[in-house]
């Protein structure tokens, strides 16, 4: 159980997928414009990551080394399609708000990275720990980034249509660069520098 805990905890801070491994930056840059998007993306990535980690670790011994990457991609893409069809059919509201981000999970390096680095070398039991830890680490990173971008870029914090609070002055003149692509680079770079400087990450 201690190893399970270790595999679970490492993905959250020590090898945080966004700030330490610097994986999956493309979707991170694209969707961290609001807390809603961050939560939706986290949900999609968690389901796909958990599913692909379980299947890949279960069949890891019969996958020949030379075709492992295509096999991983097929499994990941299948999971994304299943999630996307299921959401579309039974949770149309969530599907709507996720929009383009669901299919984007296929090209999320975090999922493929965990398959290659962890699930293909470890048992199902530990691969579940790994998937959950990495998913939480991804969620934390997305929430921090999108919190800053949404607040500075729109002057208010809105979650699922409810405005939590707004900063007077910023609402009338939001720093809209933060909601655009350059703002994403700025925020991620500054956060990474801050975390490294304070020793949160190495």
């Amino acid at each position, binding site marked *: 159980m201690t190893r399970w805990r270790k595999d679970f905890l490492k993905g959250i801070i020590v090898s945080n997928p966004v700030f330490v491994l610097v994986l999956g930056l493309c979707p991170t840059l694209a969707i961290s*414009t*609001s807390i809603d998007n961050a939560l939706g993306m986290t949900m999609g990535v968690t389901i796909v990551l958990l599913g692909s980690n379980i299947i890949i670790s279960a069949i890891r011994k*019969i*996958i*020949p080394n*030379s*075709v492992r990457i*295509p*096999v991983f991609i*097929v*499994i990941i*893409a*299948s999971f994304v*399609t*299943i999630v996307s*069809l*299921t959401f*579309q*059919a*039974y949770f*149309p509201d969530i599907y709507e708000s996720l*929009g*383009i981000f669901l299919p984007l999970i296929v090209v999320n390096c975090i999922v493929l990275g965990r398959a290659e680095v962890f699930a293909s070398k470890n048992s199902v039991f530990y691969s579940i720990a790994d998937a959950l830890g990495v998913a939480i680490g991804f969620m934390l990173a997305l929430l921090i980034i999108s919190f800053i971008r949404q607040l500075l*870029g*729109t002057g208010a914090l809105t979650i699922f249509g409810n405005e939590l609070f707004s900063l007077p002055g910023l609402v009338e003149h*939001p720093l*809209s660069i933060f*909601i*655009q692509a350059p703002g994403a680079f700025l925020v991620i770079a500054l956060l990474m520098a801050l975390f490294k400087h304070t020793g949160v990450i190495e």
Partner: protein
Amino acid sequence: MKNSKAKQALPILVLTVVVLIAVSVLSFTHDITKAAIAEQKDNKVKNMLKEMFPSIENYKYEDNLYTISSQDDIIGYAFLASGQGYGGEIEILVGLEDENTVKSIIIISQTETPGIGARITEKSFTSQFVNLPIDDIALSRDGGKIDALTGATISSNATVNAVRETSIEKVRLIKEVP
């Protein structure tokens, strides 16, 4: 020799089997979700048409045109319009009261910049189209009655152009069929 050939074939075999399994799982998922997805899409259209025409009783869909009726009287038309915005395609449902007047519009999907172009979905923008004569669908700087969103001229322009051009095209179609 035989052994090494078998060895070479193994990766191909495994990949083929994995793809076959994936394809069957996907087609199975597609089969069981197909009906629900079609229903969701249908419901979505119905709800939007009801929002536009509260007294709707029936509608007919032909040539990409919804003809809305209530007690055998045609009370309006609706159709989809799309235009190229700043961040991608903007899809709009346009409702016409008659051949000359817009009833209202609903932005169905857009990928404009949040906080700037994405404000085309807000009521303050879309309400400008309510009961607007088709001839007046243009930005005010072009002599129309629509005020562009500050800082989002491209998004505003794309919406206005899509609504005007598609409306003119559909009105021609409506007038052709008595």
